[in-house]
């Protein structure tokens, strides 16, 4: 198992799943992937298909319709898979938590490995979150 965790944490391919966000978190996620932060140093790549992914980034307040789709995308991903909720909306619903179309937070439907609050979180905060997540995975 340690070999599996080692290989997984050394080559995390990221799939970005946006559930009706305001785009601020998405812009910050893309910022994190720019040459300035150069996440390819750690083997992190952005992929276009969830079938290639090891890490799903959720952003935005997932409403009643988006939650079903997000669950389906999660089921299509090959396991083992790691899920991170980026931003206040994905963590708790943020300012949309009392909205008529808002379900319980996405964590009720998909097992989430790490929550990263912020509106939006800075690239540095995202890198810190990924580092903590890798440490947590290595610890078992």
């Amino acid at each position, binding site marked *: 198992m340690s*070999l*599996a965790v080692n*290989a*997984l944490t*050394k*080559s995390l391919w990221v799939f970005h799943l946006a559930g009706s966000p305001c785009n601020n978190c998405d812009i910050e996620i893309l910022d994190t992937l720019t*040459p300035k932060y*150069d996440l*390819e*140093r750690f*083997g992190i790549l952005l*992929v*276009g*298909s969830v*079938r*290639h992914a*090891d890490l799903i980034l959720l952003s935005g307040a997932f409403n009643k319709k988006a939650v079903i789709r997000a669950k389906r995308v999660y089921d*299509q991903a*090959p*396991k*083992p898979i790691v899920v991170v909720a980026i931003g206040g909306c994905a963590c708790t619903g943020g300012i949309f938590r009392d909205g008529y179309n808002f379900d319980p937070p996405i964590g009720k439907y998909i097992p989430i490995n790490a929550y990263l609050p912020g509106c939006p979180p800075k690239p540095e905060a995202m890198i810190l979150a990924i580092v903590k997540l890798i440490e947590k995975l290595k610890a078992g």
Partner: protein
Amino acid sequence: MDLAYLILQVVVFPGLLFTAVVGLITSWIDRKVTARVQMRVGPPFLQPFYDVLKLMIKETCVPAGASRGLFLSAPLFGMAGAALASMLIWRAFLPLGQTFSGDIIVILYLLTIPAVSVILGSFASRNPLASLGGSREMKLLLAYELPFVLAMLVPVIQTHSIRLSSLLAAEPAVYAPSGIIALVVAILCMQAKLTLVPFDAPEAETELAGGAYIEYSGPPLAMFKLTRAMMLFTMPMFLIAVFCGGIVFSEGWLAVVCGILKYVGLVVVIVLIRNTAPRIRIDHAVKFFWGPVTVFVLVAVILAFMGW
């Protein structure tokens, strides 16, 4: 020939294992040079090996309604084709005397198998984006194969032989004007054969989300990645074998270093083209290969006939 020896050649050296390891190192060169072009640091040396290892431990998803047998076996065909092509090229480099007349034609056929396997796998996956990628791959295959074979004709005409070892023994084709033109055309066709930018329409990350590979996960995806890495090794090797005299092992270490430098140089040319060109549309690619490139290479063939 001893059967065990032959199996050893196919599986270990210079076949599958050797090609895979050197191919992964080449793909690291590709990623590192790309990173330096973009003013980044780039991935560590073992990154391609970690990627393949990680894909090996992932789950294999087969989409509902897909043709299961073809979907799972397509990557194997591609990998076998790339490994066999590389083995035939290296048997001509090594002083073993194990070449046969017409091995260039066999290699040309084997080098198309990875592309065919991508087409089969994408159509078997029952995904609309994958079949779009597959159809683009097919068009691209039809487009570059004509000028590629014509370019290979130039050194064959110059040396009057379709045996790779006699091409290696003769004066390299690039010393003649026709050989230079053919090499330039072959580099363009190689870029398309490797489906690298500007000819990466079949897997267009931005519009097809991985295109032909979209439904692949786990070990089959690892095999496709490995096949791509092996082709990144085999194609430049084939070009330096046909046009630039290959790697000579019988004339001391300086000739070997010279051969490796030729190979690395060609890889860097591929990477630089891939980093400085935008993706072109598939119909433009077909027009490009069937129009100017074919005319260009026909001129080279005529020059070669005239003895230039």
